[in-house]
């Protein structure tokens, strides 16, 4: 059992210190022993130090976690307007795995946000697969359009990111896309001209029909007058 008296009873010391026959009101005089020895004092101080230190360490780790999560939160919120920040936010949340204190609400936030970034990554991976499929099918224009229309963050691994960037950066593909656009443009222009010509022709036809009806009506009117006469 724990004792501050080094296993001694207060009366043990009394017996040592009392002069023979010394009494107080007929009873042996109570000893004037210290409350505890110096070793016990040191032990108690260390114990108190550990408790106080532990408490402050706990508070410190809590504060470090709160600060780190606040930083990650700010990055994640910023990423909603600047997609490139998703990578930083992800890196920040991944650093939080080293923290010694993570509350349940922090854990939920971390899991959900990392999950959301993972979703974005999977979406880009799907697009990447589509673009690669289009390239394999020698449809570089579709591949370019898939990659070019993506406005999200770059979340692919290094190798895939290199392929991805090579599609939008490839001069030959760009030339193909420009040629295809020009072709589409000229087809559209030709179609527009053909449409307007067709419209003019239709209008002329309609006018000719209207004219012929009017002439016919006039002829009929003249004939009618003659008969009456």
């Amino acid at each position, binding site marked *: 059992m724990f004792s501050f008296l080094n296993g001694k009873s207060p009366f043990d010391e009394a017996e040592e210190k009392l002069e023979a026959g010394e009494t107080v009101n007929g009873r042996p005089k109570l000893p004037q022993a210290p409350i505890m020895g110096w070793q016990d004092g040191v032990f108690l101080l260390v114990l108190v130090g550990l408790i106080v230190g532990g408490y402050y360490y706990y508070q410190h780790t809590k504060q470090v976690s709160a600060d780190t999560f606040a930083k990650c939160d700010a990055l994640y919120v910023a990423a909603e307007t600047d997609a490139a920040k998703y990578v930083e936010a992800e890196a920040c949340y*991944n650093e939080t*795995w080293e923290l010694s204190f993570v509350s*349940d*609400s922090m*854990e*939920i936030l971390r*899991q*959900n946000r*990392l*999950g*959301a970034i*993972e*979703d974005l990554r*999977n979406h880009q991976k799907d697009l990447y697969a589509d673009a690669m499929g289009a390239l394999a099918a020698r449809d570089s224009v579709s591949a370019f359009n898939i990659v070019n229309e993506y406005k999200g963050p770059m979340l692919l691994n290094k190798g895939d990111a290199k392929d991805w960037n090579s599609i939008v950066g490839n001069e030959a593909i760009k030339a193909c896309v420009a040629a295809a656009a020009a072709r589409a443009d000229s087809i559209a222009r030709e179609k527009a001209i053909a449409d307007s010509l067709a419209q003019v022709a239709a209008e002329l036809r309609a006018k000719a029909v209207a004219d012929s009806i009017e002439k016919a009506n006039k002829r009929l009117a003249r004939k009618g007058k003659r008969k009456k006469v």
Partner: protein
Amino acid sequence: MSESIVDRQEKIRAKFASFADPDDKWKFLLDLAREHKGMDAALKAEKFIIQGCASTMYLVPKFENGKIHFEMDVEGGTTNPLISRGLGALALQVFNDMAPADILSVDPTFFQQIGLNVGLSPTRSNGFASLLKQIYLYARVFDAISKK
């Protein structure tokens, strides 16, 4: 007497119905994940990996005494995929140590009905759907074996 699969579903349905705060669902999944015991590393073979999960989820079946016992674990590399592990543990709360016919009797939309999918990221939803698909597949196979 052991609990029926319907009783298990009702328990989980009641649990989900009791969640007042949306975070309660996540806390519940985190608790399930923390309580869930992993599996022996020797069992973690590639053939037991659930395809379609963002994390690496292992599901190992063992057919004994007419019931299927599942071992499940999730690995996430440097991360700790607690939600995925929680989802796996939740599925096992319904299906573990049940007869194949019992497993096949469960409506696959049960988890949607209780609102599990609400707020769940598409990747995790797909992963969970893949896990359920695999459980049903094992149940069908063991059901056929047991009827031979």
